[in-house]
């Protein structure tokens, strides 16, 4: 917009040089009024934009706000539709650890998520590397198949996979939740490949001419350059299994010692001595790590989501 208005001003001044002084003063007066009008108009627009944004923000924040305030209420108050705790029951956050095995659930979830993340990263980087940095017969076909599996509804493969795990006597255990992640994730390969293709080939070619092996090239040159993308897939893998409900529902629900936060939280109401306000306390604690992670890695995150979209 800036350059355009400048150009217009220059053209205007060319026109103005042919006009009489009085005419110029008159026009300048008009333009001053116009400018003032424009500034007023810009100001109004800013106010209306921010009003709308603040209104939408309030709606988005409201449920999070309510979780926190209800989690600080006592049982009686939590059932009165009030929106401010009195008295503040900070003790809820201690009690939740004794009322239910919350710490155990957290550690279980953390273990599954971390193992899943390691598995995904270790098993997705090499396929993404050869799919993007090397030319070979069948490469594009392979990539199309990978994308195809991303579109495949999980329900179609779910039952035979469940049968495999039950024949291995892995149900209930963490193994069905962790082991598959060591066999590559199509989504992670896709995201990494998008990033790897954007690294200039000249770097690899130079290293190859110097006699660098492909493995070394991958580990020493491409992987360090692709740190942001690897961080993004690690983050997605971690959050994916932290938030997963269906997998644990199939594979660990039978053994209470293995419960994850999602399963535990869903079973909350049926558990002894548990009140509704505590449910919100537990929910708040379940959300907290994810939100903290988000604030520390917002950039990685948003770039990652964008990379999977239709850009480029």
């Amino acid at each position, binding site marked *: 917009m800036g350059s355009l208005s400048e150009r217009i001003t220059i053209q205007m001044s060319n026109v103005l040089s042919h006009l009489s002084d009085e005419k110029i003063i008159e026009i300048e007066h008009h333009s001053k009024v116009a400018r003032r009008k424009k500034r007023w108009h810009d100001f109004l627009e*800013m106010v209306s934009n921010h009003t709308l*944004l603040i209104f*939408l*923000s309030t709606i*988005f*924040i409201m*449920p*999070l706000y*309510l*979780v926190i305030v*209800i989690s600080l209420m006592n049982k009686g108050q939590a059932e009165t*539709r009030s*929106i401010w705790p009195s008295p503040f029951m900070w003790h809820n956050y201690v009690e939740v650890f004794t009322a239910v095995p919350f710490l155990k659930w957290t550690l279980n979830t953390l273990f599954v998520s971390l193992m899943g993340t390691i598995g995904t990263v270790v*098993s997705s980087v*090499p*396929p993404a590397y050869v799919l993007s940095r*090397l*030319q*070979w017969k069948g490469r*594009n076909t392979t*990539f199309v*198949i990978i*994308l*195809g599996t*991303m579109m495949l*509804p*999980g*329900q*179609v*493969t*779910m*039952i*035979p*996979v*469940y*049968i495999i795990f039950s024949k291995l006597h892995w149900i209930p255990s963490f193994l069905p939740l962790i082991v598959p992640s*060591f*066999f*590559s994730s199509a989504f992670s390969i896709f995201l990494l490949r*998008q990033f790897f293709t954007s690294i200039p080939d000249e770097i690899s070619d130079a290293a190859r001419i110097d006699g660098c092996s*492909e*493995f070394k090239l991958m580990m020493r040159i491409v992987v360090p350059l692709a740190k942001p993308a690897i961080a993004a897939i690690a983050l997605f893998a971690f959050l994916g299994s*932290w938030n997963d*409900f269906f997998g644990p529902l199939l594979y660990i629900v039978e053994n209470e010692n293995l419960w994850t936060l*999602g399963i535990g*939280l869903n079973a*909350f109401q049926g558990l002894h001595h548990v009140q*509704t306000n505590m*449910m919100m306390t537990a*929910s708040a604690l*379940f*959300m907290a790590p994810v939100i903290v992670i*988000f604030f520390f890695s917002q950039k990685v995150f*948003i770039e990652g*989501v964008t990379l*999977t*979209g*239709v*850009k*480029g």
Partner: protein
Amino acid sequence: MQLTKAVASFSPRKRGEGALAPARKKLKVPYLFIFLCMSPWIFGIIIFTAYPMVASFYQSFTKFNLIDSPEWVGLENFHRMFFEDSDFWLALRNTVWISAISIPLRIAFAMFTAWVLTKPKRGSSIYRTIFFLPSMVPTVAASMVFTYIFNPAYGPINRGLEAIGIKDPPFWFMDPKWSKWGLILLGLWGIGDTMIIYLAGLLDVPKSLYEAASLEGATQWQSFRYVTLPMMTPVIFFSFVTGVIGSFQYFTQAYVASGQVNDYSHAMYFYATHIYFTAFRAYEMGYASALAWVLLVITLVCTLIILKTQKRWVHYPNGSLFK
């Protein structure tokens, strides 16, 4: 599959097909290295995709309860599905209903929130963070929180609605007529990740197009309708396809919400829920496999229909996606 081709060509510009290509041809292709690198994926796809697909296709023609070996019954499962199983039709109706409403609504809302974010000159990153945040909340927690705060007796939402003058606000998850709307609102609350893709798309629209439009005296609505919207059709198309695929797998939110309230009328009983209950509660693995295959066929047909129509409404600035 055409769909996969479409996604494949979303990749950024292909490098190395210019001047350097002949030089690289001289280097031997390290097939052993390639095989080793691909092996996790190769074994993964055999164990977790190819074999299970064949097995579940076979099982869909059998009666199978996990303990005895599968017994061949021909097309009986499909006959039962279409003519005897009223839960199948209920689940299908519920799924189609919620998809028909929530997919367009989600697209519109993602577009709207992203568009609002492009407006202010300063401070939009704070709003972006706030809009994005709910999509990070674990599904189980989000679903529990929603059923609680929308509870007519002790949830604060209805109090707020009464305060702004809405008499007799709906009972949301407690009312079969409204529970799906509760789920739709829950989905809209977590719009963040979709919104980010729309935001990237909006920021990609060349400024010069807007300048040209405003020079020709286009109103805000006209420049949205004739500049923004056509430029956004690839993003809309993408989220339409993924939305259709996703909606037939809609499970966790409905499962958690119907566990919290007593969903006696099965208003929150969806297709994926039906498969889950058939397979892992009733242990009718054969029938559940048949249900899963019908789901796959429905998804494929829907996707193909959308792909067929795309020529008419999807605008690709750099020519067609199909080379």
